């Protein structure tokens, strides 16, 4: 009797509160976000977490379309194409209750251009940012920049007051191993607020009650638990057992197993990302090789031979189980500037490659170390291991050093590796982004991910000219010229474009984001 009464009372209570049930999504992927500081690392999984908490002026939705976020309207001024005006959304508050206004945008864009920021390359055409009033921002560029808006989709806006109060006006020096308040805490305007974070183990998010987009987006998920699970078998076991609802990287060998499970599904799409090897071709001598006083990678014939030695077909068939598209250029097909001719795969001719190595004077072979991440790209370590075998066939002995991305990436940024694996996604869908980060000489505000030590003033000048070239045909011609040079130099050894395989419980509904960034506010639940 008493029990019946309590049940009735509970039912009444539930009815009166409008049945707000917490819909928790358990989300897992191989690696964690590297830092919560939104400007410290321009890296996929780091942005993926930040996109739930922080917001840029505009974002790409799950299909890749640019849609309003903190700005409602934007575009170059009719009378002066050098100035873009952004109308800011009104009535937006941060998770701590502070109001959002143009001061914060001024502050964030300045912060993202400062010394330790990893987002500088996206903003280097900006001459000045002005805030005529609390809800308007004007960005003046060096010359007309037709793709300025494309560069802002991952540029998160922070609260100026919060940053000042917590002494995080300066961007975290990630490569230098610094930890700051902003690298462990977050205060954004985004749909979810951070409730707890233990790096590499568990991050918890909760729907933000004061989110401006309520009613506009599904926002059906009210709690998110994000767990990085590096081991592929453990990750897929967690999905199969129902411990997690959504994994971003189903191991290619387990696609069939997950798809066959009646409670689970796999959805796939080619990713806007290319995986490649970089070589130190600029230094006079390498630190990780056994050749005294010379850099074998400086010889184009060696690079050409290595490019030919990579058996992309075998990597696709065996390591990737057809979940990749072999690449001949370090640019995904989504990007402006991509052509089928550029993406032609070099022939896998071991004899010719050997002859080239011998011609370069390394017929007796040499030894070098390959640095590789083991929790970032699909089967990254297995690909590197396969490369060890392929390089051995042309006489190059490769020592493999595979480690977590949190240690691998700083080695590239700090120029501490001679031979490394890297993947590059292109959120702007334009070649300029690739050139700015990977091809331009490494300077203060460009070339930060160029680990090749390549430096060519002519190419640099062409890259810089792209930002202000309004004649799109001419701009495309310059892009083609730069790619021709990059391909001729064999600056990078492309491997493939990944195919994304998102695995999830049947109750989750979404499409695959080509940048591999799930934006949970768009997710719906069955």
């Amino acid at each position, binding site marked *: 009797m008493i029990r019946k009464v309590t049940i009735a009372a509970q039912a009444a209570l539930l009815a009166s509160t409008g049945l707000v049930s917490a819909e928790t999504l358990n989300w897992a992927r191989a690696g964690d976000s590297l830092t919560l500081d939104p400007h410290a690392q321009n890296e996929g999984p780091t942005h993926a977490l930040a996109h739930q908490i922080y917001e840029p002026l505009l974002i790409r939705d799950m299909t890749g379309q640019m849609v309003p976020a903190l700005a409602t309207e934007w575009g170059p001024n009719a009378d002066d194409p050098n100035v873009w005006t952004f109308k800011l959304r009104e009535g937006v508050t941060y998770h701590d209750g502070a109001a959002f206004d143009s001061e914060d945008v001024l502050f964030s864009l300045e912060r993202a251009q400062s010394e330790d920021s990893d987002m500088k390359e996206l903003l280097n055409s900006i001459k000045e940012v002005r805030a005529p009033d609390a809800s308007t921002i004007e960005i003046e560029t060096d010359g007309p920049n037709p793709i300025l808006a494309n560069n802002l989709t991952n540029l998160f806006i922070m609260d100026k007051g919060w940053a000042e109060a917590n002494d995080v006006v300066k961007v975290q020096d990630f490569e230098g191993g610094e930890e700051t308040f902003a690298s462990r805490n977050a205060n954004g305007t985004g749909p979810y607020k951070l409730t707890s974070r233990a790096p590499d183990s568990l991050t918890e998010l909760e729907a933000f009650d004061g989110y401006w987009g309520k009613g506009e987006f599904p926002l059906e998920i009210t709690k998110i638990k994000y767990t990085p699970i590096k081991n592929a078998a453990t990750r897929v076991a967690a999905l199969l057992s129902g411990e997690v609802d959504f994994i971003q990287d189903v191991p290619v*060998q*387990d696609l*069939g*197993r997950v798809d066959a499970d009646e409670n689970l599904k796999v959805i796939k799409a080619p990713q806007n990302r290319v995986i490649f090897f970089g070589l130190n071709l600029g230094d006079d001598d390498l630190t990780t*090789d056994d050749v005294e006083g010379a850099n074998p990678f400086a010889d184009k014939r060696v690079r050409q031979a290595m490019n030919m030695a990579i058996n992309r077909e075998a990597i696709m068939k065996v390591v990737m189980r057809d979940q990749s598209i072999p690449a001949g250029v370090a640019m995904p097909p989504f990007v402006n500037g991509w052509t089928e001719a550029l993406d032609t795969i070099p022939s896998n001719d071991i004899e010719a490659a050997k002859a080239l190595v011998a011609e370069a004077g390394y017929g007796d072979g040499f030894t070098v170390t390959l640095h590789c991440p083991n929790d970032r790209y699909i089967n990254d370590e*297995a690909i590197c291991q396969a490369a060890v075998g392929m390089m*051995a066939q042309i006489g190059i002995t*490769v*020592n*493999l050093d595979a480690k977590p991305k949190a240690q691998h990436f700083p080695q590239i940024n700090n120029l501490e590796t001679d031979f490394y694996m890297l993947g590059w996604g292109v959120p702007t869908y334009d070649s300029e982004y690739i050139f700015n980060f990977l091809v331009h000489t490494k300077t203060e505000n460009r070339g930060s991910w160029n680990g090749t030590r390549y430096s060519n003033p002519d190419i640099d000048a062409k890259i810089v000219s792209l930002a202000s070239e309004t004649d799109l045909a001419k701009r495309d011609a310059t892009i083609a010229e730069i790619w021709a040079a990059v391909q001729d130099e064999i600056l990078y050894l492309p491997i493939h474009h990944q195919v994304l395989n998102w695995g999830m419980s049947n109750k989750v509904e979404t499409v695959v984001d080509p940048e591999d960034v799930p934006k949970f506010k768009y997710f719906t639940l069955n």
Partner: protein
Amino acid sequence: MDSVKRAFDSDLAWSFRHSPVAILSATVALLLILAAVCAPLIAPYNPFDPASLNLMNGFSRPMEPNAFTGDSFLLGTDDQGRDVLSTILYGMRISLFVGFAAVVFAMIIGVVAGLVAAYAGGRVDAIIMRIADVQLTFPSILVAMLIFGIAKGFTPVHLRDQMAIWVLIISIGLSDWVQFARVVRGAALVEKSKEYVEAAILIGRGPIAIIFRHILPNVLSPVLVIATISLALAIIAEATLSFLGVGAPPTRPSLGTLIRIGQGYLFSGEWWILLFPSLTLLLLALSVNLLGDWLRDALNPKLGD
């Protein structure tokens, strides 16, 4: 002296002849060791030569021709196209070499520390045994990982692959010396108070001679037992470290590395990469362990029936 030794030997031999478990485990252990030593002669491929690998052979099922190359492998191939049988044989060499060397290393440190502690007594004894006590509070695999991490940090990157095996030996050895030290100290304390030691002191022999010429031979039998059991543990420790990805380099896989690779393909039905190395490791560790158990019983009259 000779006759005593012979009697000792024959006792042990008698016990061995009458223990089917001992005979069986010794046979299995010897066969495995022999197979590992002769790996270059009997293995069909050299899995440690990356140039000889063909990635296209990857994931071949046991005794079935590969879909791309048509090659057939007795126990299948792993994810890189390495013949599993050859990799087991070569990998066992690493496991056994690391095991033996680590035990010898631990034994030398432990025996010397134990003898010195027992003979010197006082403060020296206290210091050595407290260090041992502190180390015992940590699981030995944790100690090994810690030492491995530190040693790896000190090794230049381009030498890491070559040095990995030696670093493994040192880390497993250093994590394992305590047992030797404690047992030797106990036995040596008993021996120290015996008359032959007092006689040796009286005739003016130096402490080093007394420790190594007189006491050491009389404490060796427990050391032998611990060494055998430690060998099994060291082999498993090496496999554990490699399984965790901190041991043998991926290009020179040991049994633990193979098991690590194999467990990634369990859900997809590629069972042979995991099963065969696991069985080998089980057989190897079990046979050595049973041999150690038998040796302990045989050398300890108190346990006899």
